[in-house]
């Protein structure tokens, strides 16, 4: 299918940019809503060429500065009309994925922002593809199905809770919608290339530098890592085959989850890396850590610590039926691909001067 007019929110983000570029390459007209970043940069660093919205057309990307937290996406009426008229699809990828933000930030960006986009979709009866997260399952253990949402789960982070509420907004609305839930998005399957070193990459940096030497967790805890190129490919497929996907939820997850033992074993392959200990959460005492380590732990690791004890396995039956290809890289081999890229570009294996630099990488204010 080609020739759709698609609005992508969060088009400057990691997933949004890749989806924007791919949809344009497939011949769609893409209207890319960005917030503060005026440039759309693909995962491999290439800048996407854009044209003014007045010259938009098949195979082209037009960049529009807006704000999903505001009514009419923060646009003037005329510009809003330009944007909303004739839309065939909306891909809602705008969100903050940083951990450790204040709840108000999550609520505004992830919940209210989704509500505003849903309103646009409902007003104009435009099919909506909502980009969520597999971790709306919170701290559930065991098999998590794609059609499950609210099972009374507990959330490990404000981010997860906000995405859970956002999905509820989508489900409650009278619009044809599809939800795509990526797990932890990491580098591409073949080369490990990733545009932004955020979230778990920051944790890896602290581990490998030996700034954090022990964390509360289990060797058999499970992390689901999904290649960014697969996530983008699945979202584009949903856009193209919306009628088949309509009303469904898709787990965009890796070929198989990684255990923390896999992570430990992969890190041990690099002579210059330190490898953390996993200590039972019931006995872990952050107060007993050495002072330097305690600072890193409290300011950064604490945001992620629930991931070191989770044991969720995501069922992806729906995604398997629709996806154009499936991730195949698993275990230490895939972790090695990701780590090799980090070393190649100098992200890992090179010490950062101090906590300030790490916080900057984590996207947290000091």
């Amino acid at each position, binding site marked *: 299918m080609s020739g759709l007019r698609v609005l992508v929110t969060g088009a400057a983000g990691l997933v949004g940019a890749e989806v924007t570029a791919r949809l344009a390459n497939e011949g769609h007209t893409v209207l890319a809503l960005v917030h503060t970043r005026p440039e759309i940069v693909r995962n491999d660093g290439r800048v996407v060429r854009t044209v003014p919205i007045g010259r938009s057309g098949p195979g082209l990307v037009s960049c529009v500065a807006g704000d999903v937290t505001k009514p009419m996406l923060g646009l003037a009426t005329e510009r809003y009309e330009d944007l909303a008229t004739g839309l065939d699809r909306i891909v809602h990828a705008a969100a903050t994925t940083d951990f450790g933000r204040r709840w108000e930030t999550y609520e505004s960006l992830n919940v209210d922002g989704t509500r505003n986009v849903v309103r646009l979709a409902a007003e104009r009866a435009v099919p909506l593809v909502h980009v969520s997260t597999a971790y709306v399952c919170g701290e559930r253990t065991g098999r998590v199905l794609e059609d499950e949402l609210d099972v009374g789960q507990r959330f490990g982070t404000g981010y997860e809770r906000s995405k859970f509420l956002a999905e509820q907004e989508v489900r409650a609305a009278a619009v044809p919608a599809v939800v795509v839930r990526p797990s932890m998005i990491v580098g591409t399957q073949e080369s490990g290339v990733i545009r932004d070193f955020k979230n778990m990459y920051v944790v890896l940096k602290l581990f490998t530098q030996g700034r954090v030497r022990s964390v509360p967790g289990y060797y058999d805890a499970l992390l689901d890592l999904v290649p960014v190129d697969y996530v983008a490919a699945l979202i584009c497929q949903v856009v193209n085959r919306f009628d088949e996907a309509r009303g469904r939820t898709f787990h965009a997850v890796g070929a198989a989850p990684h255990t923390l033992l896999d992570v430990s074993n992969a890190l041990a392959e690099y002579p210059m890396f330190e490898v953390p200990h996993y*200590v039972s959460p019931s006995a872990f005492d952050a107060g007993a850590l050495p002072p330097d380590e305690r600072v890193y732990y409290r300011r950064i690791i604490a945001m992620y610590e629930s991931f070191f004890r989770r044991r969720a396995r995501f069922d992806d039956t729906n995604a398997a039926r629709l996806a154009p290809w499936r991730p195949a890289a698993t275990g230490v081999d895939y972790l090695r691909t990701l780590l090799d890229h980090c070393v190649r570009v100098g992200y890992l294996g090179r010490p950062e001067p101090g906590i300030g630099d790490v916080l900057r990488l984590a996207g947290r204010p000091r």
Partner: protein
Amino acid sequence: MIIDRAELTSLLTETLDLVDAPPGCGAVLEGSIAEGFGNSASDVDFLLLADDDHDHPTMPTIVFVRGRRVEVRTRSLRQVRAQADAVCAHVAAGFGALPAALLDRCQRLRGAVVLRGEDVVRRAREWPLSLPEVVAGWYAHHSRQAMRHAVASHVLGEEHEALAWAGIAARHAAKSWVAARGETYLEPKWLDQQFDRLAAGGDAEAIRLRERLAGLRGGQAGDAESARPPDEPVRPYDGGWAGTGLGEAESAQPLDEHAALVADFGVDGCAADPEQVLLGLRAGVTTWPIGDRLHVVRDRADVFVLDAPAGRAWRSIAPGRPVGEVLRRAPGPAASALAEFHRIGLVELLWRDGGPIASAQPWAPAEPVTPPPSTRMPVLGLAGAAADGHVALVPLPAKRFAAAGMAQVWSHIMIENAREDLSGALDGGQREVARTSGLRLLHHACRALLSACGMSPLPPDAAIVARLGALTAVPAELTAQAAAVERELAGDEWELWAERLDKLVAGVRDLVRAEVFPASFDSAAAWEATLRIGHDWIRLGAYLDADFPIEEARDLLTSGGAQPHRRGGG
């Protein structure tokens, strides 16, 4: 040929009377005599070519005819075609994996003298490739690798090795050069005769190059080493040819000359440029600190323990960076440690845009060197294996090393636990409780001792004291002491038990160098230190899927020492 054709025909006829030859087979003389070399000691090598599909054995039949040793091999046309196909496939994929023996068999057939069955031989020799090109390319590959190895050895301050590799590179380059001119016989020892033949044919370049090769050969062995005063250590490369420890002129010149000759022989991609040598990680090699000591596991099978300077060198490894740059940043003896890491296959050295620098040469095994295992006893203590020089091979398989280490940590924890119980029982006047605690302490002291000696799994408690006597590594005095304590624990003089057991534990810890083992239950800090070492062992054990001493040990060590029935997690 040193044997004329009539003589050869007679030799063949007499040989065929002694062996089973396939009917209608072709026959050739191959090897050094057929190539026009050989001497009175050379074997006569006959190859029989059977026009069938059979798998004839590779091993030759050896007979003695007219005082000569004669080797007879038989191959079917299917076999020789399969060999030729295999060579073609290797050539298409580059020369790196083409075995010397395979190429040698193909070359010998094509350089052979036909004695019988010309049609069968002609069909056996059908081949789409040019033999001179294949042999020249194959030797060029090995020359290139050897020259790169020479440059890498120089960067690492291994000058003697550098010159040895450079010499190999030059000779392989010469073999490549003569092969390109039709002298394809692989055997290296006939190189001079091959030059002779080219020179006799009027090739002036052959004379000039052979003289340069001979010049290098004459000068290489002593020059670099003799230029270095005996008391001056070899220093690694530090940013150019200057400063290699030998003085600029002495160090760089022989290698430069070798590299120049190699290039003149037509082998490219191996200039004497140290910046081309990069560090790379080797698959299947992992790093495991235990306490402050680094252990490197190779292929989940071998454990190497590094002393402190080697450990610092190991931590300085930056994959993908020039070795010279890494050495400039690394502390003093890093070069010799890196050289050893490469020799034993813990790291790779890469040529920029040229892949790994191979350590092996055509007729040598490709596996990395494995040093003899350490003879230090006990094999391990709480802080890992006994460091024995820069890099020492632990004399235990990796999985057993991890299991023994975990048993060691667990035994020391249980010694402390039993000692506490013993004290409580003695204070309370509970003799039988004290006896049981004392026995438990004795058994764990023996377990600590045996696991430190590398025993894993450990014998049952009932036999453990007796087993001490069977180990030469355990001093007789300790064995006797343990036996005496066991006898005393069976008696009634219970006021002596604590003192005797403490003395035994002190002896055990002295032997296994665990005398600084924190008394686990005395303070939170000491307990933490104990558990940290335990976690180091568990991390290694989990990687190797080694046996935990008992499930309770796994719980204790992975729970951070939480005592589930005690309030406040303490």
